[in-house]
């Protein structure tokens, strides 16, 4: 079987998400789809799975044009995909979720509950999580929810499997199970297309990789022969090493010795643990950990989003009851979830960038233009709607919104999620200059590479690693490498005492 995408193009408003993307997949192949934000890989998968209609171009299966008008149509053509944001439903049981796409029925036409249970148990057993069959979906941990999403795909009969970023939420053991199942599918002659940003996993699981950038397909490489640097250079479009050096600031930053903010006993509800933390002026603290191990709780709690929290600021006790008080005390919060926690989609750039200063702090911005330029936003007019900007530029505006408040403490929850390399580098420089001016910052990131770039070899930066609600490791200076961080996030790797 051969699947061909020919010249697929798709634009959203003014943004060209896909430009003449062409791709060929053969059976018995596990192909990775690699690229930064704005590369179009997610869009391509969405087109293939029927969620989005392409503006131009067609998909051919064995030479015949495939009419993919909806997810239902795509499934009928043998294409099954997993959703990056999970398509499982909390009001249905595990079994109902897994069999949702083709519910087994009895001869009377009614649902065959016995078959639902038996068949979904079979799938769950293959994944090694048969014990969750009776657990309510909403109370499952994130990694198991993703496994159920995968189980849902496994249950359907497919020729082509599209996996959109499933591995980032899975534990190492889960990834191993998924890998062996994918190998089975490959042996059966199925086609698998996998999106992941983790180069290591791509090398582990896949045979070949297609790199995309700015909506275009750049190159397809055999993973036996292409090395990491080469792939990265394809993704960025310039010499990788070059970018790395250019965003290092001249002054590595000096660290003041006195504590600026101390918090003790910050609760991590999911694990029932508590964390103590001290931040100094101008200090950059990166927070790493597997998804959902308490990192988000730290920054959210400090911004008053999880109820009242007591901290010591400059020696005096302060209670932060809610974000309103947090902002008044000079705390800022940049979220990675632009849609629900960041962008005001019906407002223009001026309103978005001045939101906090103008309304909450009552400090009118001197110049919106200056504010927008200070974060290097690419825009045409202050009055244009924020949704007309690309994701990376939108995030820069949101960043600028908080920079304008001249915060004493900057908190961030995965701020560079979905942002391309270029923009990430620019944001790093902004963080360095803010730190130089005395802003303390706690940056949570699920991207260990990013944390390493941010915090390595600087006297005012460190990375703390969370595991199951506790800080298990602190890395400084030359210790801060992607490998060390990753190792520390796991229970058995690294030096966890």
């Amino acid at each position, binding site marked *: 079987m051969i699947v061909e995408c020919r010249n697929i193009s798709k634009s959203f408003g003014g943004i060209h998400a896909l430009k003449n993307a062409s791709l060929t997949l053969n059976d018995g192949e596990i192909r990775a789809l690699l690229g930064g934000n704005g590369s179009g890989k997610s869009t391509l998968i969405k087109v293939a799975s029927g969620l989005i209609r392409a503006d131009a171009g067609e998909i051919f299966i064995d030479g015949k044009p495939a009419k993919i008008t909806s997810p239902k149509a795509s499934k009928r053509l043998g294409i099954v995909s997993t959703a990056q944001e999970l398509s499982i439903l909390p009001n249905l049981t595990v079994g109902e979720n897994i069999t949702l796409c083709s519910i087994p029925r009895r001869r009377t036409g009614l649902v065959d509950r016995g078959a639902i249970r038996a068949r979904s148990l079979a799938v769950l057993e293959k994944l090694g999580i048969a014990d969750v069959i009776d657990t309510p979906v909403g109370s499952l941990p994130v990694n198991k929810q993703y496994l159920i999403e995968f189980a849902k795909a496994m249950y359907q009969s497919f020729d082509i499997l599209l996996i959109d970023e499933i591995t980032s939420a899975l534990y190492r053991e889960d990834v191993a199970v998924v890998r062996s199942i994918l190998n089975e599918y490959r042996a059966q002659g199925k086609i698998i297309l996998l999106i992941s940003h983790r180069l290591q996993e791509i090398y582990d699981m896949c045979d070949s990789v297609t790199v995309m950038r700015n909506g275009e397909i750049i190159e397809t490489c055999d993973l036996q022969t292409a090395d990491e640097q080469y792939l990265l250079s394809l993704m960025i479009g310039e010499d990788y090493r070059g970018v790395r050096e250019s965003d290092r600031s001249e002054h590595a930053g000096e660290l003041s010795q006195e504590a600026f903010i101390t918090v003790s006993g910050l609760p991590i509800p999911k694990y029932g643990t508590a964390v103590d933390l001290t931040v100094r002026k101008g200090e950059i603290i990166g927070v790493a950990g597997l998804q959902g191990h308490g990192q988000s709780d730290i920054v959210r709690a400090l*911004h008053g*989003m999880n109820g009242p929290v007591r901290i010591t600021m400059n020696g005096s006790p302060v209670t932060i009851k809610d*974000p*309103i008080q*947090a*902002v*008044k005390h000079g705390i800022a*919060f940049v*979220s990675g979830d632009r849609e*629900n*926690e*960041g*962008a*005001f*989609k*019906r*407002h223009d750039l001026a*309103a978005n960038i001045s*939101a*906090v200063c*103008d*309304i*909450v*702090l*009552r400090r009118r911005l001197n110049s919106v233009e200056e504010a927008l330029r200070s974060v290097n936003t690419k825009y045409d007019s202050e*009055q244009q*709607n924020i*949704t007309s900007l690309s994701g990376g530029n939108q995030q820069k505006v949101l960043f600028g*919104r908080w920079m304008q408040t001249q915060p004493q403490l900057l908190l961030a929850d995965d701020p560079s999620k979905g942002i391309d390399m270029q923009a990430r580098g620019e944001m790093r420089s902004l963080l360095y200059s803010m730190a130089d001016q005395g802003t303390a910052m706690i940056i949570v990131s699920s991207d260990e590479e990013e944390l390493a770039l941010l915090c390595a070899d600087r006297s005012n930066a460190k990375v703390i690693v969370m595991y199951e609600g506790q800080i298990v490791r602190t890395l400084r200076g030359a210790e801060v490498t992607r490998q060390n961080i990753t190792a520390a996030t796991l229970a058995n790797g690294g030096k966890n005492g």
Partner: protein
Amino acid sequence: MDRLAMFLPSVGASIVLIVIGQLIVPGFMSINNISSILMTTGLLGIMTIAQNTAIMSGNNGIDLSVGSVASLTAVVCPLLVSDTVGELLFAFLVAMLIGVAIGLMNSVGIQAFRIPPLIMTLIMGSVVDGAKLFVTKGSPATRISPILQSVSDPVIQPFRILTIFAVIMVVLAELMLHRSRFGRALLLTGDNPGAAAICGINTKLVGGAAYAISGGFAGIMGLFLAGYAGATTMSMGSSYTLLSVAAVAIGGTDLAGGKGSYVSCLVGALVLTVLTTILQALNVQEGVRLIVKGLILILIMVVNIYSHRRKS
């Protein structure tokens, strides 16, 4: 540019309807008729200030109790006015406070108990209707003092006192929306409540205030309504709920919240008033009038939704 685009459909529709009116109904463009249309528009316009505020506050905002609130103040407040302007102003104050009190009850239900606005205001409307019947024992205020009725007196034809007040209120509301911190906070909260909360905006206060404002203007409108009609009946205000929602939709407000214009809603009110006037002049029976109103509302909704979907 974008703000201007919001006006175009309603302005266009008004012009078309006025032309149709002139063709179908003799004497349509007479000064008296225009004056009357403008006054009714003003009346509806005050109601749209209420409704627009509730809808713009987001969270599937809507206020289905505005008609009931207006009916309540229409039957109760005229009792406070006998013959002085002072009493008149006092009556308006009381009407506003009654409306604000009911609006605050809506706010409590919506913000504290997290009841969807449509259910909360729908039920509140029933409660207010019940309270109105209870308080008046079924008989509304019998006499509307002349000074209250003078709101329909002309100042400079075709503009009457009510019309001018309505326009002033709408303009002030529009200025408040864009110039005041509260107005801007309201729009941000309606646009993205999660982001607004993180920015440090007190979304509960803002959202709650929106319904208090809505109730207040509905209350004021009720007293104007009594003065305009010269007499009171039990459910005077009820038809204005639907009309206010329609006017807000014609005015191009995003029904999901976060974007809208009071002035544009006033033009929307004009469209509806002209339409209703034409229907009345054609002497269609009540049933047919209702059918036409309902169909037009659907049409307005579809256009409104379509235009907002195209933008995203």
